[in-house]
């Protein structure tokens, strides 16, 4: 048993898990605030990565300008999505909004293929390139710095949620819109905010993921693993997104290293099946008490 190798792989897995956690956070943000399951989270991640590509490579903007531009652009996209296709379906059964996000995923993939073609592209490097060594274990610099950025933003979001009254407002609108309205909370504005922030977090995640593995119109498949992460962690749990992200990152890295790259997704889905059988609401999700 090559422990050093195991350690190295695990390290990479956990660092990669940080990225999953960031994207999962984007998902949980929208679900916590609006109870909407956004199956297009992977595609929104892709949109952010492509925006960055446009700003940084095609328009040759400096990196310190391109990243905020891409993130803000994604935020704008999130606002547009919320206004045009989510808000009109308020009050409809949740299955309808869910299907709208399926349509959204399709539209985003098509747009990317049309504007930028389906070819794989590389993003310009902007992270330090020196190899990171933890003892004897090698950690790819991009993976490491990506994880660092992810952790910083996750911590920021957690703090904001906890202490800013906007975070409370977010949770209020999720549990009872009518009550939130009567408390003076501007519910539509909260919804928009949730989607904007979610899109920005997804874009950030996309930029990092794209930097590591390149971008393509099939990047959305990353979203699948993110969906498994939120199911494992609990759809409405920020802590769950973190823990779930690390778990899935670890599982995928181990599967990829010991079984082969094609088995990564398979391993993830086995985890999905196991979780559905033993703890369907996820590790930290709230089991809603239904009333008859």
């Amino acid at each position, binding site marked *: 048993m090559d422990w050093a190798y195991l350690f190295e792989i695990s390290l990479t897995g956990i660092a990669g898990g940080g990225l999953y956690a960031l994207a999962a956070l984007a998902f949980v943000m929208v679900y916590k605030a609006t109870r909407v399951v956004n199956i297009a989270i992977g595609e929104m991640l892709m949109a952010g990565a492509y925006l960055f590509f446009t700003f940084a490579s095609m328009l040759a903007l400096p990196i310190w300008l391109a990243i905020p531009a891409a993130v803000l652009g994604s935020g704008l996209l999130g606002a547009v999505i919320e206004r045009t296709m989510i808000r009109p379906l308020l009050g409809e059964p949740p*299955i309808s909004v869910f299907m709208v996000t*399926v*349509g959204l995923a*399709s539209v985003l993939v*098509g747009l990317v293929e*049309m504007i930028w*073609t389906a070819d794989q592209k590389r993003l310009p490097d902007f992270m330090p390139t020196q190899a990171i060594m933890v003892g004897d274990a090698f950690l790819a610099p991009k993976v490491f710095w990506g994880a660092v950025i992810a952790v910083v933003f996750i911590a920021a979001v957690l703090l904001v949620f906890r202490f800013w009254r906007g975070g409370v407002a977010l949770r209020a609108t999720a549990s009872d819109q009518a009550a939130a309205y009567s408390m003076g909370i501007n519910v539509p504005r909260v919804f928009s905010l949730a989607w904007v922030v979610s899109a920005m977090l997804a874009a950030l995640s996309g930029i990092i993921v794209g930097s590591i593995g390149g971008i393509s119109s099939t990047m959305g498949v990353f979203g699948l693993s993110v969906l498994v992460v939120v199911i494992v962690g609990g759809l409405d749990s920020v802590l769950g997104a973190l823990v779930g992200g690390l778990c899935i990152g670890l599982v995928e890295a181990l599967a990829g290293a010991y079984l082969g790259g094609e088995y990564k997704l398979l391993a993830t*889905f086995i985890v999905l099946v196991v979780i559905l*059988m033993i703890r369907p*609401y996820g590790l930290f999700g709230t089991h809603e008490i239904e009333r008859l």
Partner: protein
Amino acid sequence: MRIGTLKESYIADAALFDSRTQKVWLAVAAALLVLFPFIASDYWLYLACLVCINVASATGLNILTGYTGLVSLGQAAFMGLGAYTVAIMQLRLGTPFLLNILAGGFVAMLGGLIVGIPSLRVKGLYLAIATIAASFITHFIFANTSFTGGTGGLTVPPASVFGVLLDTSFRLYWVIVPVTVLMLLGAANLFRTRVGRAFIAIRDRDISAEVLGIPLLRYKLLSFGLSSFYAGVAGGLWAYFFRVVTPESFPLLMSIFFLAAIIVGGMGTILGGILGAVFMTMVPELLKLVFDLLPNSTELTVFLSPVRTIIFGLLIIGFLVFEPHGLAEMWRRIRRFFHLWPFRN
């Protein structure tokens, strides 16, 4: 104008086609269906067969998503299971057409049960994610096992029915249409019985349904199994029609195609499944036509695929936002208008 229709028995009231006018239209439609292959060109015969296959699959998805309220993105994966089953049986065993098709249905249904059992115990959303997973896993299996011909896929010899080789659209038409009609009738019958009512109850208010006597998991699995069976049969017909199955024949986009079909057509109505499948089958054809007519058509063909993807998504979003009950509802409005004409509604 159609005034009250009189029924003299409860059985008559429950019939699928009740009024005289409906029966007449039915006879006309049947006559047209019989006449069609003799007057249509090869291209339209090809389209007709494709439409029927899509109608069959869309109806299956409608049972699951439109009537039972469970979203699935695995319709293509289950069609693939049916198609590969038919391909393997026809190619390696030479077994009869009907047996292969039924086997295709059953294999797909089995796949459905495997996916459904873990994911249907909780909220419906989990089924959707599990079906996406199923799409990837079936693709993985199709592409990586030599039993299924690997990435190259399999060529399917033509079906043979009563000694006649089904190798043209004309001949396949006479088999595909009756199978599709039977599947449509089956689905319509379902909703005259307690099974169909249970499905609708699950969609509308599942927690009350259980207290009223409907075992939830059992019926959700039943709905999913049935819709997978329909997909498997449609996939089998697909295999006999296109005569080639590859791992790329049943991508996730095809599942989105079928979801769009039932949304556009009208979820929860049999007519919706038909209208939606017809509409969606025509969309790529129309798109090709439009592209051919544009200047610089040769350079623009590379955009055909992405534009198609975008349009599928826009149709889903557009209909859900503006016309959630689909074309079937539009059709009903037109009919109501004519029922009351010359009086205004």
